[in-house]
């Protein structure tokens, strides 16, 4: 099986953007005017399928949680407008996990035992995933994470935890390394958080850079309590060609700003993971100096000139303007590089449930097995970020990566690395593990 069934069923592949929009609007509008029971009369059971969504509503991940929820709500509106899953409506059950591993585990218990969710989904921060995943395994609750951590593919977790909607840091890095050494320079200094997915970057960058013929000359790990950074910048070796930065949390803007003030007019090349500036307006004061630097983007924030219609449809559904901010508030910038994973994951859940003939929670194992046999996921309305390949053994998807350059306060994609160039050898085979 190389194609997921949902692709052929979606009715959104229209030749023009306007057409796509129309379809979507009509579907959503029609669905909204009908009473709930009337919408799904064809289904055997009209009871909604419940998807438990662990949201970072509070704590350090709150900016992400907000956009994850918006994307998920939009994706479900689309899925419901198109007839739901197996003819049944789909409902999001949202619980705040406080960006805390213990609470996240409790939230999974709540999904499984209290609110009778069919699957659990969501969760970005890797410590939250690692803390919650063992509970998913024990509860035998399919847990679809949208985290980009390498924890899934590293084999640390279990058969019930999957990451089919977003690529992991290790593959992102292996996609970026040739560009760094080939285009920007051979000597790389990395600055990363001494927590969260900082470890994935620390562990994977140096091998990838060396494989691409470069060298990591310094690694500067920033502890979570830090609020000022200038004092660490002198630790950057003078002969550095490229600074590679990936920061997270509320201090990132300070970080980037102080880096600019430190270097002044004579900066090396700078390459960052957009995580450093997710949900942050690139025209914020102090960020002028980023002009001409490069970023990895999981999915382009700014609407690119050559964007296909399904990308525009996705952005309209989520409510993004051309700059990747909310249409209702231009200062409310999205977490574009990650949140698409929610949209795609929900479509994969739909596809998996339909392939497995999912009826009730008794079919949870069938659902996991159905997702495990998935492989190619063609770009389209269900996968607006691009064509991907899912590896059922490692429970991890591989997809295209974007390199963008800051020009005039906007990010323009300068290079797209296809999924084929991001693949690394398997580290685990979850399918050989028991349920």
């Amino acid at each position, binding site marked *: 099986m190389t194609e997921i069934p949902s692709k052929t069923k979606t009715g959104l592949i229209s030749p023009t953007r306007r057409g796509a929009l129309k379809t979507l609007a009509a579907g959503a509008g029609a669905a909204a005017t009908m009473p709930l029971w009337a919408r799904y009369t064809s289904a055997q059971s009209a009871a909604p399928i419940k998807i438990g969504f662990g949201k970072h*509503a509070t704590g350090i991940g709150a900016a992400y949680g907000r956009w994850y929820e918006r994307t998920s709500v939009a994706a479900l509106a689309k899925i419901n407008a198109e007839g739901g899953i197996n003819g049944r409506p789909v409902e999001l059950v949202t619980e705040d996990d406080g960006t805390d591993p213990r609470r996240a585990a409790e939230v999974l218990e709540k999904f499984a035992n*209290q609110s009778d969710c069919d699957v659990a989904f969501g969760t970005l921060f890797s*410590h939250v995933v690692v*803390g919650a995943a*063992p*509970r998913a395994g024990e509860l035998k609750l399919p847990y679809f994470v949208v985290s980009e951590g390498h*924890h899934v593919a590293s084999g640390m977790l279990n058969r019930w935890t999957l990451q089919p909607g977003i690529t992991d840091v290790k593959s992102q890095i292996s996609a970026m390394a040739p560009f760094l050494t080939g285009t920007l320079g051979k000597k790389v200094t990395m600055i990363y958080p*001494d927590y969260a997915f900082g*470890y994935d970057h620390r562990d994977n960058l140096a091998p990838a850079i060396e494989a691409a013929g470069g060298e990591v000359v310094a690694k500067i790990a920033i502890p979570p309590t830090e609020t000022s950074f200038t004092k660490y910048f002198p630790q950057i070796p003078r002969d550095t060609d490229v600074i590679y930065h990936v920061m997270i949390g509320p201090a990132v803007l300070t970080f980037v700003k102080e880096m600019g003030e430190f270097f002044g007019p004579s900066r090396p090349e700078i390459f960052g993971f957009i995580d450093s500036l997710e949900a942050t307006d690139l025209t914020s004061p102090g960020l002028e100096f980023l002009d001409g630097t490069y970023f990895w983007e999981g999915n382009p924030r700014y609407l690119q000139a050559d964007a296909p219609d399904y990308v525009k449809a996705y952005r309209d559904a989520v409510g993004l303007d051309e700059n990747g901010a909310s249409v209702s508030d231009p200062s409310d910038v999205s977490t574009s590089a990650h949140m698409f994973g929610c949209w795609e994951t929900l479509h994969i859940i739909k596809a998996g449930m339909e392939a497995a003939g999912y009826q009730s929670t008794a079919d949870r194992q069938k659902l996991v097995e159905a997702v495990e046999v998935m492989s190619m996921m063609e770009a389209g309305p269900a996968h607006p970020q691009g064509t991907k390949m899912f590896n059922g053994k490692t429970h991890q998807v591989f997809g295209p990566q974007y390199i963008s350059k800051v020009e005039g306060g906007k990010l323009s994609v300068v290079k797209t690395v296809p999924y084929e160039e991001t693949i690394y050898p398997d580290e685990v085979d979850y399918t050989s593990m028991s349920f």
Partner: protein
Amino acid sequence: MSRKDLTLHLGLVALLFALHFILPAYHHGIFARVMVLAVYAVGYNIAFGYTGLLSLGHAMFFAAGMYGMGLVSYHFGVPALPAWFVGVACAAALAFVVGLLALRTQDVSFMIVTLMFAQAAYLIILYFSEVTRGDDGFVIPGALRAIGPFDLSDEGTRYIVAWILFSTALLFSLWLVRHPFGRVLVALRENEERARLLGYDTGRRKLASLVISGTISGAAGAAYAGLFGYVGGSFAGVQYSIFALLWVLLGGAGTVLGPFIGTLFMFYLIDLATEVTEAYMLIAGVVLVLLTLFAPQGIVGEIRRRLWKDLP
């Protein structure tokens, strides 16, 4: 120990055992978790509630237990029970060393010193992230999470193990506060100088109290790792130190039942508040303020003050 006290506490132990058969799945899981965390609060209560040592760093003892247990499992494949003992020993040793230093200070300085040590412990976990997996933490391999034939990841076993641990801690603390040693701890809390001039070596007793307290906290941390399979840096963070203080104060500092009641209350308060609003901590904050205004001795403390004077 009066018969009435013993009946009350054994009654709670029996009730929790009975709940094992009655509670719906979700609440069953929650009670198991609350019992383990309540053990942490029981430990904290011995230092804070009974001895008057206001520590803001108990998360380091919880984490010492958790990491002591977790690291030997994860790196050396030690099975759960021996690993648990390693965790407890780590917490006891840490409490001893911290006590030797921190107990040279008093009051607010003691608060800050314990806070600083805990912060350093947290940063050390991050610094040695190649061993500890830092803030991400790690999962203890399922195969190791068993005591003999009992699989700790099984809901029933988990509940019973948590219940055994909690009951032991609860009855131990009841015994301790009735024992002459415990009475001296109370005397230290009330008036340290007077206790010294009655001939008590207050320094040694405070150290002993802190070690007992830290050991019980560590036992909770180690049990948490074994029962829930996850070891992570967030448990060593400041908020977990503050949690212990909150749970104990809410339930009633210096009462045997207070830590459990406080932990349970706080848990359901937050759990129910999340149903109403995303800003559930707002509700928690308001309740805290109201409690200090209208029930300053905590829930059990108020019961003692108003209804049951001899409640331990």
